[in-house]
């Protein structure tokens, strides 16, 4: 068994909470010790963490590699942006509601097409469908603003059904500080929800399908249906992340639907380790910092990130969390040996 919760182990609720609660406390304390810039970076990390967590329900637990998760992230983002631009809506909760609804509908339709396939065919189909959405966002500029995108000012937005707004002096600082906790709360809910899902009978069935589709079928598990539900949940996590990302970024452009962003979600997940529950979250946070510093320090930041990926795949195939838990396992077994002697 694996301290950090590898896919398919039997971690108890208590042990997982013993790990999660202190971590959550640390995350909650961080803004008290760092500046607004770092808080914002971490906030991005949490948002991408939600997307990667959703993505990994497909990759790590169902065995399906999607190259099109930018589509669902983008749907969540554009829905919020449209609600601002065309409906004048300012409530974050309504954005989330709208974003989830639209993402669910489109994900269900896309998923219906994709889950009949596996491996490279599944990957290519998800990629192709995401490119369709990207083309729409890019070409229908009179609706979407094209490459100029849609601006969403945090000043026009409220949290908690209008209880919290960001007008007046110092509003930017206030927004960064408050919005971080808003995201953190939703992040915690998403992590808890996903944890339950992957440990439910449904989650076990997904892992069974991943390991052996034929046998799963001969246990009476309807493979397509389970894949479709996993796809839907996965897309909705990405959609929620997309909506949460909008006020943080302040601008929605077609880049967020474009395939390189799907690649970044894959990158985050592999970086953290797709064979563990926490891997994608760790990967998303680390990736976001890596990227921010790479962009700030060199014009060739893509090359720097590419290099990291190459090293990663060769040296740490199980990702950061996989490597850490192996290390923890070594330390523990060593401790046991010393106790025994």
């Amino acid at each position: 068994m694996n301290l950090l919760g590898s896919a398919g182990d039997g971690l108890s609720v208590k042990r997982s909470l013993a790990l999660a609660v202190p971590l959550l406390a640390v995350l909650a304390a961080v803004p008290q010790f760092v500046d607004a810039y770092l808080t914002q970076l971490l906030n991005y990390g949490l948002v991408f963490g939600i997307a990667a967590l959703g993505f990994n329900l497909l990759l790590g637990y169902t065995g399906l590699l999607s190259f099109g998760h930018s589509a669902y992230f983008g749907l969540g983002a554009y829905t919020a942006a449209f609600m601002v631009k065309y409906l004048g809506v300012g409530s974050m909760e309504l954005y989330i509601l709208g974003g989830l609804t639209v993402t669910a509908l489109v994900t269900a339709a896309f998923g219906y097409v994709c889950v009949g396939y596996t491996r490279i065919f599944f990957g290519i189909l998800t990629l192709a469908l995401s490119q369709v959405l990207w083309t729409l966002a890019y070409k229908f500029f009179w609706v979407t603003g094209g490459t100029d995108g849609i601006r969403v000012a945090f000043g026009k937005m409220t949290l908690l059904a209008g209880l919290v707004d960001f007008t007046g002096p110092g509003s930017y600082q206030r927004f960064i500080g408050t919005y971080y906790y808003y995201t953190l709360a939703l992040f915690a809910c998403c992590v808890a929800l996903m944890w339950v899902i992957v440990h439910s009978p449904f989650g076990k069935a997904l892992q069974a399908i991943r390991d052996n589709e034929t046998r799963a079928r001969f246990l009476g598990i309807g493979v397509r249906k389970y894949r479709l539900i996993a796809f839907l949940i996965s897309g909705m996590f990405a959609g929620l992340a997309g909506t949460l990302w909008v006020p943080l970024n302040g601008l929605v452009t077609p880049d967020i639907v474009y395939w390189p962003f799907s690649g970044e979600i894959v990158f985050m997940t592999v970086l953290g380790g797709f064979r563990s529950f926490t891997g994608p979250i760790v990967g998303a946070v680390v990736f976001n910092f890596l990227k921010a510093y790479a962009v700030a320090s060199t014009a060739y930041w893509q090359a720097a990130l590419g290099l990291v990926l190459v090293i990663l795949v060769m040296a740490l195939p199980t990702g950061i969390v996989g490597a850490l838990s192996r290390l923890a396992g070594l330390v523990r077994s060593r401790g046991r040996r010393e106790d025994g002697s």
Partner: protein
Amino acid sequence: MTLLKTVKLRKYFGDTRAVDDVDFTVAKGEFLSLVGSNGAGKTTLVNLISAFLRPDSGQILLDDKDITYASVDERLRAGIARSFQLVNLFDDLSTFDNVALSIFSREGKTLNLMRIADHDQDVRREAEDVLAQFGLAAKRNVAAKGLAQGERKLLDVAVAYALKPRLLFLDEPTSGVSTRDKAQIMDTISSVVRAGNVTAVVIEHDMDVVFKYSDRIVAMHQGAILADGTPDEIRRDPAVAANVLGLPATG
């Protein structure tokens, strides 16, 4: 009493007559062995009955109900389960989860997303009971890929058995294990199956095993049934001796 019956069941692969108008019956409660050399059609016959393959023609009747074109799910609900010749497990799941999943599926609980699987006490008890019966209790938390070959074969049977079938097909449950392990595996399987009142059809090559454990033996050759009888009758059958056991026919 007849539990399952096939009537002129046929499956050809091109020119190969894998199953050629076979009339095959299984009586309730028996432990039946299906023997024959490689390519005799044993696995194809089981594949047809378990809905892994569709027949070209003929009928499959379970309790006199036609299930020839019933889906895998329908057959499972009617009580037909199977294991596979090449071990077919969920390798990254624990031994416990492999069995628990069968029970969740049988109980229609696998679409439950909001309950932690390990907290279902009924399923937990039953899975632990099945593991104990198959002698796998100590390996409860080991990933299936970490089991020894003999344990994997037993787990493969346990996964099918946990579906609580009325009719269980086991495709070479002792292939790929040592002679010593073979006896132990067959002892376990036959005692569990008999204790659970499950009708079992076992495909097996090892004739010592077959003669020792079977109530009845059906020998196949080139897609057809060559002989059908008790172990004693089959042992004395000259056609079986020549075509299945590879012995020269004696008077």
